[in-house]
């Protein structure tokens, strides 16, 4: 009943136009690639990181990250730490006693370990599996002490989102893209 359509239609005007447009599009994509590849002054992939000197301890790192718990964790720069007995990053402002009782700890998830080293020094470590990145200890340590606690984006957890959802709400404008070859902003004794 029906007439079979020809298998190979002859090259017509529409086909010609389409071929031309495709060629133009490919040229365009190539040119675009060239521009995009040469335009940038930077040459490296980037990751998100916190500049500790800009952090204002607003608490958004704990809530705004797409990960739960956040990929932002508190880190401890031991060479800056005073190893204080009365650590204001570990204890609440007015602790009942200087022991590991939960009511004395500033950390809401008890993620800081206190370890006796020698009189009168104590070592403090962060358990990153518990840390939620709320910066409460960071604020305590920085206000009264040396600021050896500070927040960093931990790249074993961070998904490196195109648009970091914490960066968008960071009250201190502390989030920036940093070169992937130097993915941390670490505080050391040699400080600039």
């Amino acid at each position, binding site marked *: 009943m029906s007439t079979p359509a020809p298998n190979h239609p002859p090259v017509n005007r529409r086909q010609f136009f389409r071929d031309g447009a495709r060629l133009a599009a490919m040229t365009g994509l190539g040119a675009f690639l060239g521009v995009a590849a040469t335009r940038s002054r930077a040459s490296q992939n980037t990751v998100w990181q916190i500049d500790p000197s800009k952090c204002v301890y607003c608490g958004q790192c704990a809530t705004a990250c797409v990960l739960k718990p956040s990929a932002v964790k508190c880190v401890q720069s031991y060479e800056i730490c005073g190893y*204080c007995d009365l650590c204001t990053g570990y204890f609440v402002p007015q602790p009942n006693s200087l022991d590991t009782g939960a009511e004395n700890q500033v950390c809401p998830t008890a993620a800081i370990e206190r370890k006796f080293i020698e009189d009168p020094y104590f070592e403090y470590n962060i358990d990153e599996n518990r840390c939620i990145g709320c910066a409460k200890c960071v604020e305590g340590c920085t206000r009264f002490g040396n600021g050896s606690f500070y927040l960093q984006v931990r790249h074993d957890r961070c998904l490196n989102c195109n648009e970091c959802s914490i960066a968008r709400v960071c009250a201190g404008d502390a989030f920036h893209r940093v070169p992937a070859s130097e993915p941390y902003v670490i505080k050391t004794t040699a400080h600039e």
Partner: protein
Amino acid sequence: MKPHRRRAGFSRRDFLRAGGAVLAGAAVTRTGQAADSRKPNPWAYDVSGFEKTDPKLVRYRELRRFKSPHRDARRLALGPDGRVWIAAGNYVCAIDPAGNSVAEIAFAVPARCVAVANDGAVIVGLRDHLEVFDAQGKRQAAWDSPGKRTWFSGLAATETAVFAADSGSRAVLHYDRSGKLVGRIGEKNKDRDIPGFVLPSPYLDVVLHPDGLLRVNNAGRHQVQAFTVSGDLEASWGKPTMAIDGFCGCCNPVALAVLPDGRCVTCEKGLPRVKVYSLHGDFDCVVAGVESFSENAQTSKGDQAGDGVKASLDAAADAKGHIYVLDTVTSEVRVMAPKATA
């Protein structure tokens, strides 16, 4: 038409229905709190309760204030002629009682502390060594560095001796005026019952007391300690608490001064406040509370300089009982006088 082939076998639709429900359910149970910038930070380290001072305790008023000619002021000292010497940035400068800058000494590195002896000699502490100047600011001598760990943070000087608080080696170094190291005071020593200085940060200060002893702040132990010139520990007082009668935070006080009547002036950081204690260490009154240092009290000011000596206070007292308070954040000096007693 033939029935759909797949419908007879495994039911992709049921599978997807269940899978979709699980997916949505899992996502919903893991819903995070929305970040709301208007809600108070539930994790704030809240010391606001300690930032208010009972006005009844404040028994000093501000006479006047003047700005340091240079930024990053760290310590101040009073000369016998009434001039105020300030170690600020890479300078040490002198300001006369009228508030005019009258002398200035420049250094290549930050000047960390300064003391003026009664004969007018000015001793300046740089991180690792001391330098001596005359009252006009002419360099007389530069002494050798006593050690690699040295980090001078406080000075006191008489006509015959210089006491230099070395935070790095956790000791007060006793020099004679020629620069010879005579003794080391306050180092940990079980035999002499000296517990040693605990200094998480470079804030060791030393002042000369009219009773002939030195007063040194053992910040990590929240104490003021009295040493003889020969290094015996005579007394210690002070307790750790955020309350007004003690020393707050992890390491306070950070600076000392002595009033003509022998009472001791203490400065704290974190909760920036200046207080007066009796000879025996009983809390006496407040010179200036946290309210007076609003900029200094901001946590974010605490960590701006690399060596952690940004947000703190220093004090000196003159013969009239006026207390000169230096705010290291604003680099301002306030002159505080006792209120007229009611």
